């Protein structure tokens, strides 16, 4: 049974989530990929204000396809997360609590998650048509010049994710595989 979560995700909520838990997220999330992360981290380094409220924010690593007429957003599945590894620890250190992507993360990201209380959710890669149905509204927030890589504010409803890495560093990619291999012994 999936756990329903109303965003924003506080540090307390993040710390309660466990690797392997299925969750349905509702509320506001922000999109950002490599290029937007780079710009956000440059602003942090310069001590300038960010175009989004990073406190308790969940960032979805996604670059959607353009919306067809009548759609809130085009196909919108996760991109591979390790490309954001250089930037995520900085954003976690100033308040980000949730990340949605797919694939492995670096030790530095996991260390930051443990230190500050953040969680890494996985959405199913290559399922952009299905996932976009849970996105009810999309609004451009910053960096329009980046096209698909711009930052968008999304309102999601029962957006399906799985906790891949929790705030204690437990990792579903390790435990799920082990569990499967044990099940066929």
């Amino acid at each position: 049974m999936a756990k329903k979560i109303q965003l924003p995700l506080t540090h307390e909520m993040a710390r309660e989530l466990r690797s392997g838990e299925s969750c349905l997220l509702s509320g506001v999330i922000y999109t950002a990929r490599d290029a937007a992360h780079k710009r956000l981290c440059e602003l942090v380094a310069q001590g300038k204000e960010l175009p989004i409220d990073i406190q308790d924010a969940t960032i979805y690593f996604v670059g959607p396809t353009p919306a067809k007429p009548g759609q809130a957003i085009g196909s919108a599945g996760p991109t591979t997360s390790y490309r954001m590894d250089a930037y995520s620890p900085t954003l976690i250190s100033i308040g980000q609590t949730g990340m949605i992507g797919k694939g492995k993360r670096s030790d530095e990201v996991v260390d930051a998650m443990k230190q500050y209380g953040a969680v890494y959710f996985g959405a199913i890669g290559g399922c952009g048509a299905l996932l976009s149905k849970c996105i009810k509204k999309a609004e451009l927030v910053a960096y329009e010049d980046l096209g698909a890589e711009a930052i968008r504010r999304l309102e999601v409803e029962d957006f399906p994710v799985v906790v891949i890495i929790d705030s204690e560093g437990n990792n579903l990619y390790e435990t799920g595989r082990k569990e499967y291999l044990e099940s066929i012994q």
Partner: protein
Amino acid sequence: MRIIEAAKVTEVVRRLCIDANCHLPGDVKARIEGCRACETFPVAQGVLDQIIENYGIADANDVPICQDTGLACVFVEIGQDVHVEGNLAEAIDEGVRQGYADGYLRKSVVRDPIDRVNTGDNTPAMIYYDIVPGDKLKITVAPKGAGSENMSRIKMLKPSDGLQGVKDFVLQCVEEAGPNPCPPIVVGVGVGGTFDKAAYLAKKALVRPLDAPNPDPFWAALEDELLEKINALGIGPQGMGGRTTALAVRIEKMPAHIASLPVAVNINCHVTRHETEVI
């Protein structure tokens, strides 16, 4: 000599870009559904169910299966008796430009790998030309996402590494890729040729239908053996554990230098897209 208008090429490429991105080929669907039937691990069953539901939604609504609508990889087989009236490369790029705009597909190309400014129209296409006998023009559009492309590798093995070296390298690539390339994956392998030819063969292997094994029994058996070994790793759909790590292994080979054994592994995700038309 048969004359084909460049405008005809544009029209075909435009359609292939849209169709390939919205409709998964039947052989890929059949393989995914076959793997779902064999999958015993509940988490993996759930992931495969969502993958099947997803391409159903894409089919029904003519929307992209995946938001990464890729670099437009275009394989062109030009009959030597064909003359294209106009500029062929420009005609292909125009088809990509129109297809990616009209199909609401994502523009995912930067003009320079370092300055990284988006070209805004998904051009240029990555074009692979092949001159063949005949008077036809065969065009295959295979949009290639970066998540799986980035997990691809090449290695110049020594001849003494032999068959075992090839097997070990393929398995190592899949192991290191883990959940990153959106498993279940299709593994394209190129063996032999030069450094660049091996990579080309690996990419070309990915457009061979999944129900068409290598015509050479030795290489077909190796495809089966590697698939079995990959699916014993336990990585599973999306890396969350399970049997279905790969849908297929496809190997293409060619002669090599007496001192070389190049091996390239080009990984594709479960959204292994390609559409072909013969003009």
